[in-house]
């Protein structure tokens, strides 16, 4: 078994070198494919992360109360809401406090524009923090049944829209990826077909001498896998280089846009390298299996 393994690997490396031009062509195309995939991947992961962060800021439900609703009836509502497992925190916000907060926050420089208002335009409200964004709807449903409510505000819809965007981004990535993987498999299989063809005499002799099919396939399979691994290493290197530059540029120019910044270089490229390796190996192996099917069916 060990002897065969040695033989297989030795032969595979010889094939890669003997067929250098085609091997390089395959490595180029798989690397290009992995790079495109890498770009998609880093963008999607970063956007998803940003959205996750945004979700945290929007996990609130706000119940606006009618002016005639008393503090007592608001308290019963709060009690009932506190009983729900989806609710993390509930508190009552008096409209005067709200106005003060609001003016301080948004119009700190010219707070006097509200001085002329005869009446506070804001309602009293109950502010709820839900455990996760998805439960906001359920909490809102319960709140609707209360008497003395003006309206209920929550941000689910806008976040849903964002989620849909990432969802389609992900689907787009999957489709592009499938397409690119298919092309790469074709390219590899063509390369291996050439080696198989160049070695058909040898294969014929191997069959006469009693080599098993897997023994004959071994070097070709390994050839594909070697091509895949080289491509994976190359593209991992390139992606690390590019991504670290981009992250650096981001942290200088536009980091104020996001609270958390982009996914760290080490984490991103480490994961990507494994994905590249798995993909590269599968593409190489599939490519050689496809190319050998017709040649080695007996």
């Amino acid at each position, binding site marked *: *078994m060990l*002897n*065969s393994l040695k*033989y297989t690997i030795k032969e595979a490396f010889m094939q890669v070198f003997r067929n250098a031009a085609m091997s390089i062509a395959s490595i180029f195309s798989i690397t290009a494919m992995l790079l495109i995939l890498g770009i998609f991947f880093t963008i999607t992961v970063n956007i998803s992360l940003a959205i996750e962060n945004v979700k945290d800021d929007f996990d609130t439900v706000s119940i606006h109360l009618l002016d005639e609703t008393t503090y007592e009836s608001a308290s019963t509502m709060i009690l009932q809401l506190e009983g729900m497992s989806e609710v993390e925190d509930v508190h009552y916000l008096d409209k005067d406090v709200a106005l003060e907060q609001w003016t301080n926050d948004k119009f700190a420089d010219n707070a006097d524009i509200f001085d002329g208002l005869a009446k506070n335009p804001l309602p009293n409200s109950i502010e709820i923090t839900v455990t996760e964004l998805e439960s906001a709807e359920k909490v809102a449903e319960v709140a609707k049944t209360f008497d003395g409510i003006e309206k209920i505000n929550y941000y689910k819809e806008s976040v849903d829209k964002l989620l849909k965007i990432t969802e389609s981004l992900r689907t787009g990535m999957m489709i592009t990826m499938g397409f690119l993987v298919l092309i790469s498999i074709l390219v590899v299989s063509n390369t291996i077909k050439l080696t198989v063809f160049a070695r058909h*005499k*040898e294969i*014929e*002799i*191997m*069959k*006469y*001498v*009693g*080599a*098993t099919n897997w*023994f004959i396939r071994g070097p070709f399979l390994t050839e594909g896998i070697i091509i895949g691994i080289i491509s994976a290493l190359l593209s991992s290197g390139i992606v690390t280089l590019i991504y670290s530059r981009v992250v650096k540029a981001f942290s200088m120019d536009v980091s104020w846009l996001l609270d958390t910044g982009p996914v760290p270089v080490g984490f991103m490229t480490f994961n990507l390298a494994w994905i590249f390796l798995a993909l590269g190996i599968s593409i190489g192996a599939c490519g050689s299996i496809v190319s050998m099917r017709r040649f080695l069916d*007996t």
Partner: protein
Amino acid sequence: MIKFENVTKNYDTNVGLEDVSINIDKGNFVFLVGPSGAGKSTFIRLILKELEPDKGNICINGMQVNTLPNRLIPQLRRSIGIVFQDFRLLPNKTVFENVAFAMEITHQSARNIRRQVPQVLSLVGISNKANMYPNQLAGGEQQRVAIARALVNNPTVLIADEPTGNLDPDNSWEIMRLLEQINIRGTTVLMVTHAKDIVDKMNKRVIAIENGRIVRDEYGDYGYKEEDARLHTGDYIGGGYRKYVK
């Protein structure tokens, strides 16, 4: 041991073999003769399970070939050594490597290979050329290498499809002496040939096929006249894909 029982093999409209029964015992030396297209290669390809018979039973070295599952084909072929008219050596491997190749294929250790290959090279009398490449050797020497490769895994049967077809008379006789020596060591030898003088002088069992049928099976001479023998050459080998011109 090679045993055919009422074996028939047709290619669409062409007759390959027609109701052939043969029994070749262990240690036999057999010439298979007959005109071009008679079915000699078909016979060999059936032995190697390169072809499936339409009818009949084939038993090789105790293996029921017609019902043998495909995964056991390598095992069958390892018990059979095969030599071709065109040598079929790998040009980019040395003599030693060409022979070692047959052992690598059967998962043998480097140590075994280093021990066994020189032995078999010396048996065929080519030890001194172990590090040369096939294109540096004469035809007779190349055929010796091919025989060494066929023998290195100790097959019970050696099949030679016109092994002297590309060689001059002197070299042909050297190869024949080698095959005879191999046969004396206990290996069954089955040789397809059109060389009348060789068959006549060797005085071994001769099986003649014509149009897929056995027309003669006895000890003695080639059985065809010199003019006919000439017609027999220019044969198709290996399933009729390649034509060899002398």
